[in-house]
């Protein structure tokens, strides 16, 4: 008996959640899109097909060709290279603002549900006030004060979605905190931090993850939108949103060019949403296995 036990404990831990995500067609599609984005972003740090900022007055508004797969802009920039380089901005914005949103969301959600009554009610009011501010407005205000940069954008979008996540997670934490297994865990001697990280957060994760993948997707859109409005990342940083805003001025004359940044944004947003949806299912063991497999297991145990 001890032999099999030792074998089992020494078995390398494979991340089941990732396997489960990849098992699902939607999850696989989302994972491929995100992986492709990551690879392109990583490569773009060292190499792009052409210099995305090179201006070429002899090749303006060209259609797709071997040299310029997505064509060129009005100043002769290679759209493919520009989008290639812009991927790293998108990745940075999506991940950094999701991290900020997650931290803000969990912290405010926990403070708004697990503390003394007067404190958590105040936090709830604060959350509601912050939600009343549109994210874009926060970003514009921050950009006006601190200048527009990647970090102001990340913080603005992170706080904007953080408070949305906080509102959802506050209610969810309160619901789970009242459950019997939390009481049972307290009766076993779990302290408040353990309760939070072992029982509350894993059990609100399904809701939380969907919100987070949504926020990653909307962060990509916000970056595009803010850059479009001129409050995004600085002009020396390539950005899909700025490309979109430049090209859309000529959408009636050269509609083929504006398709590419729009497509890049759409596909990326879709990838995050698909991945998030599959992740939500994969993190819940009750949804994890196929029906037949779980029926067989119940039979085995019984």
């Amino acid at each position, binding site marked *: *008996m*001890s032999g*099999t*036990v030792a074998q*089992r*404990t020494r078995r390398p831990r494979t991340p089941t959640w990732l396997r489960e995500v990849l098992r699902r067609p939607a999850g696989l599609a989302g994972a491929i899109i995100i992986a492709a984005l990551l690879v392109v972003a990583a490569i773009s740090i060292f190499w792009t097909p052409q210099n995305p900022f090179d201006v070429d007055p002899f090749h303006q508004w060209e259609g797709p060709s071997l040299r310029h797969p997505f064509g060129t802009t009005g100043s002769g920039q290679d759209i493919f290279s520009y989008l290639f380089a812009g991927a790293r901005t998108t990745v940075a914005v999506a991940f950094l603002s999701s991290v900020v949103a997650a931290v803000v969301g969990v912290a405010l959600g926990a403070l708004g549900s697990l503390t003394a*009554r007067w404190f958590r009610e105040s936090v709830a009011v604060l959350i509601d006030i912050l939600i009343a501010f549109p994210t874009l407005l926060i970003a514009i205000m921050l950009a006006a004060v601190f200048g527009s940069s990647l970090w102001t954008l990340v913080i603005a979008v992170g706080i904007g979605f953080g408070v949305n996540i906080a509102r959802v997670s506050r209610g969810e934490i309160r619901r789970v905190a009242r*459950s*019997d*297994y939390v*009481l*049972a*865990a*307290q*009766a*076993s*001697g*779990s*302290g*408040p931090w*353990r309760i939070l990280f*072992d*029982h509350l957060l*894993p*059990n609100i994760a399904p809701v939380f993850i969907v919100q987070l993948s949504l926020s990653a997707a909307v962060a990509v859109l916000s970056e595009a939108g803010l850059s479009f409005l001129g409050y995004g990342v600085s002009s020396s940083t390539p950005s899909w949103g700025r490309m979109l805003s430049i090209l859309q001025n000529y959408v009636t004359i050269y509609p083929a060019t504006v398709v590419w940044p729009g497509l890049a944004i759409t596909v990326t947003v879709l990838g995050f949403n698909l991945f998030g949806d599959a992740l939500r299912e994969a*993190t*819940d*063991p*009750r949804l994890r296995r196929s029906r037949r497999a*779980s029926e067989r*297991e*119940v039979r*085995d*145990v*019984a």
Partner: protein
Amino acid sequence: MSLDVNDLVIEIDGRRVVDGIGFSVASGARFGIIGESGSGKSLTTLAILGLLPEGATATGSIRLDGDELLGCSDRELARTRGARIGTVFQDPLTALNPLRTIGRQLVEPLELHGRLRRTQRRDAAVRLAELVHLPDPERIVDRYPHQLSGGQRQRVAVGIAVACRPGLLLADEPTTALDVTIQSEILALFRSLVDESDAALVFVTHDLAVLSEISTDVLVLAHGREVESGPVARILNAPAHPVTAGLVAAARATSWQPSEGSAA
């Protein structure tokens, strides 16, 4: 280990819901608290654990082996819970975290109280599963709660409660959500565990039939006050108080036996 509760008063927003009750449970004794819904019996167990809901306060004295529990800091209470007091709650369907395996939940008290190294986790879980007579312990520790039946889950809850070999076992209506055959299995499990470990058992229920199977002495509560206490046999045969008489009548009604004339 012994439990002494004296003059326990629990107030919720200034309203007295438990009014000056007291009882003692010696090591190895099986003590019952019985009463209708809202009589304060569950609040009494929560007060012993220091886990009263927000807005409720307890005064009086709750001594575990002479140590006063009321007024202890949360940190001190957390060290006591699970280690010196094991608890089983009513509904086995909701008392387990749906996202953690049976094994991890069984050994959780051991880990919390620093009595387990990571490498021993599985062995300890399997041993606890064996202790509470779960079928196929080697495999069941890798299962999730939703894959177990209600009776099996309650066995898991009992295993968690006794993991640290606590001196006091609190059971808050642990059989109410189970059907009758499973009930008697769980009761037998409680009896054998108490006999083996010499722990004190406090068993809360509203069902006198269950109580007569498990405990030797009983405290009858109504509206937060003690109405009667003494050996189960005496209370069952000669209830002195109308509330007790009502409970006895209810128990008789549910365990009604068909007379010789009717079909078996």
